[in-house]
Every structure is written in structure tokens, then in C-alpha cells.
């Protein structure tokens, strides 16, 4: 029976993926893509990767959807012109053949993996207890491979700077996006007042529970960013001008704390990002507490986009 569910799920997702590619209207394609992302969450659960499922639901379903639909909305006016420039049939067939070839190569690689596949899972499981956290994913992300997590946080900052660089000169330092308005007695304002407190609690809960169960700072930060975006979409709060000091401090605080702990590790435990004996869990907690607000700020600002309005002095 479970095989039928899995096969049905796989077929449904493949169908959605094909539809998202084939759909002519960009809005429709983005909706299909978001549906695909939300269903992918179920597949990750079936593959026993619950942390990935949480991240997929948060980023793939929510934030990526909002990002893409914003882009699709901005491109609407040029869609007719873009459609007339579509590449001819031979080029599209070539692209399809290449894509199918890559897929086949990947499938062959996955299906011919040696059984049992080479893995570090056993060594990791043996040493998780030393880090003081119960969730092996958190242990890997914040202890064994902390360097990757640090670099990921910095890469997000670079992406944000990249987005800001798209601002017109006169608007630099100003507020991103147009001023949103919504009827203060209307439904959107109501949702934006009721949902964010609940979302904040859910985000904090997912962050806190990530120490021993699936979860963690990234998923929690994504939920917080989504709630902030909701409040901005309803016009209940305006996007902050990017010139503000508190904003920039908040963005870099997390990575700076992480780097500082890394250098402290050089002095106390002999290597960058090494944790001294017995201090692993408190240090991990400090890093997570510092990174989460920075991540939420970064993700939220990534979605509102480049500054468009000059800041009135």
C-alpha cells in the first residue's frame, strides 16, 4: 500500500513539474512551481528527511513562491514581447534532449551506487553525543561542518548586497519596494494582525526544538521573515530604509558572532571553529541565537528587493 502512495506522489509531482515548464503564462507557471514545492515536502518526509522537509516547506513553498510571483508580476508588462521572442523548435528540442541526458546520467549514478553506500553516518552518530545536541542534523550543521553554515550565512549577505546594487542611484539608502496600502479595516490587515503572532510562536518553537528534534534556526528564521513580509504586504509596517544603522548592524551581527567564536576556537581548542571540551552546546546555542535574527532580516530584505524610494530627509 505504501508503494502505491509513493508511486502516486512521484507521478503527481512529475506531472506538476512538466506542467510548470509547459505553462505559457508566467503567473500560472509560478503557481505550479509553488504547488510542486509544497508537495515535495511530503516526499522528503517519505525519505525520512524531516529537517529537509521543514526547509522545503518554508523556503520552497513560501519564500521562493513569493519571490517568483513578485518577479512574475513585474514582468507582466513585457510578457507579450518576451513570448514573441521564444526560441525556435530545433533549439527547444536540443534543450530538452540535453536536460533528459543530464537526468539520465544522474539516475544512472544514483541507481548504481554501491550498496551499502559509503557514508560517514556511523562516525557521526558515534560523536553526536559529544556535541550535547540530540538532533544529528544540528550537530553536523553547527559542530562538524560549522564552516559550511558560516559561509552560507555570508553568502546570503552577499546576495542581499547584490539585490541592493540594483537600486537606482537616487534611491540608494532608501526604502525598498512601493508603499503598500490596504484598508485598515479590511481582511488583509486583519490577517496581518492575527497571523504574525502565531507565526512568531511557531518560528520560535521550531528554532528551539531544533536542538533535539527536526528543526533549527534556518526554518525558524524563514517563518519569522515570512511573517515580517506579511506585515509589510498589508501596509501595517513600512520597509525600513536600508541606510539605517540598526538594520545593517542586525544583518552582520550573526555572522560576526559566528566568526568571533571561530577565532576564539583557535585560541582555546586549536582550530578555527573548534569548540573546547564541554562548551559545545552553549556555544552552539549562542551561535543559533545570534544567527536567527540576522537570517530573518536578510531573508525578509531579500524578498522586498532593492530600494526604490528616496528617503525624505
Amino acid at each position, binding site marked *: 500500500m505504501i508503494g502505491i502512495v509513493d508511486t502516486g506522489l512521484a507521478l503527481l509531482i512529475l506531472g506538476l513539474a512538466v506542467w510548470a515548464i509547459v505553462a505559457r503564462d508566467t503567473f500560472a507557471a509560478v503557481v505550479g512551481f509553488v504547488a510542486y514545492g*509544497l508537495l515535495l*515536502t511530503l516526499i522528503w518526509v517519505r525519505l525520512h528527511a524531516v529537517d529537509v*522537509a521543514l526547509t522545503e*516547506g*518554508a523556503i520552497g513553498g513560501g519564500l521562493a513562491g513569493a519571490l517568483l510571483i513578485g518577479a*512574475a508580476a513585474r514582468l507582466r508588462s513585457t510578457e507579450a514581447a518576451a513570448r514573441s521572442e521564444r526560441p525556435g523548435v530545433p533549439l527547444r528540442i536540443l534543450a530538452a534532449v540535453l536536460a533528459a541526458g543530464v537526468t539520465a546520467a544522474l539516475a544512472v549514478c544514483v541507481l548504481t551506487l554501491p550498496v551499502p553506500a559509503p557514508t560517514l553516518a556511523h562516525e557521526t552518530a558515534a560523536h553526536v553525543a559529544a556535541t550535547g545536541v540530540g538532533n544529528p542534523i544540528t550537530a553536523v550543521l553547527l559542530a562538524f561542518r560549522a564552516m559550511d553554515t558560516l559561509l552560507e550565512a555570508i553568502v546570503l549577505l552577499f546576495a542581499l548586497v547584490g539585490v541592493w546594487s540594483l537600486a537606482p542611484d537616487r534611491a540608494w539608502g532608501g526604502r525598498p519596494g512601493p508603499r503598500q*496600502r490596504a484598508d485598515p479595516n479590511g481582511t*488583509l490587515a486583519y490577517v496581518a494582525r492575527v497571523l504574525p503572532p502565531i507565526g512568531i510562536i511557531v518560528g520560535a518553537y521550531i528554532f528551539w526544538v531544533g536542538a533535539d528534534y527536526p528543526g533549527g534556526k534556518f526554518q525558524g528564521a524563514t517563518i519569522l521573515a515570512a511573517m515580517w*513580509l506579511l506585515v509589510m504586504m498589508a501596509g501595517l509596517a513600512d520597509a525600513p530604509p536600508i541606510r539605517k544603522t540598526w538594520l545593517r548592524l542586525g544583518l552582520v551581527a550573526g555572522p560576526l558572532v559566528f566568526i568571533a567564536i571561530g577565532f576564539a576556537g583557535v585560541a582555546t581548542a586549536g582550530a578555527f571553529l573548534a569548540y573546547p571540551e564541554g562548551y559545545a552546546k552553549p556555544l552552539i546555542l549562542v551561535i543559533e541565537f545570534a544567527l536567527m535574527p540576522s537570517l530573518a532580516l536578510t531573508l525578509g530584505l531579500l524578498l522586498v528587493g532593492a530600494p526604490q524610494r528616496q528617503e525624505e530627509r
Partner: protein
Amino acid sequence: MNEFLLVAAAFVLAMVALGLTRVLRGPGDADRMMAPLLLGTGGIGALLLLGAATGADGVIDVALILAVLAAFAAIAFVKASEETDETGSEDNA
């Protein structure tokens, strides 16, 4: 009992698939904006049933995230479609 829950999960997924064929085809954006709602309710139902049937850990948290973010995605879609046909009227939701 687990078999029953699995059958229920499969049925709910089939309903989601059928609903998607209608929702994604629907002429106009308003029909398509229903997709996150459909996946929010159907996906959460299927997820909870699957989790209960297979005894997976932490499935309830995934369903929590899905609930919050499906709502957010649907609102983002509505907002985006508003922006594309704003004719200057202040009569937003």
C-alpha cells in the same frame, strides 16, 4: 489501522491531484491562486495521515510549517496579482 490510514492518505492525495487539474487549468489568476489553499488543506491532511501510518517523527511540525506558509504564499499571490492590475483605486482588500 496503519493500512486504513495509508488508504485514507492515498485517497486524500488523489483528491489533491484531481483538484490541482481543475485549479491549475482554471482560466484567470483567481482560480490558480486557490492552489496553495488546496495544497494547504489536502497536503496537511495527507501528511498527518502518512505520518500517523508510518510513525515518522516530527511530521506534525512539518504540517505546522505548511499551514503557516501555504497561507503566506496564497496572500503573496493575491498581492502580486493586485499589483499587476492596479488601476489606481484605493479599494484594496
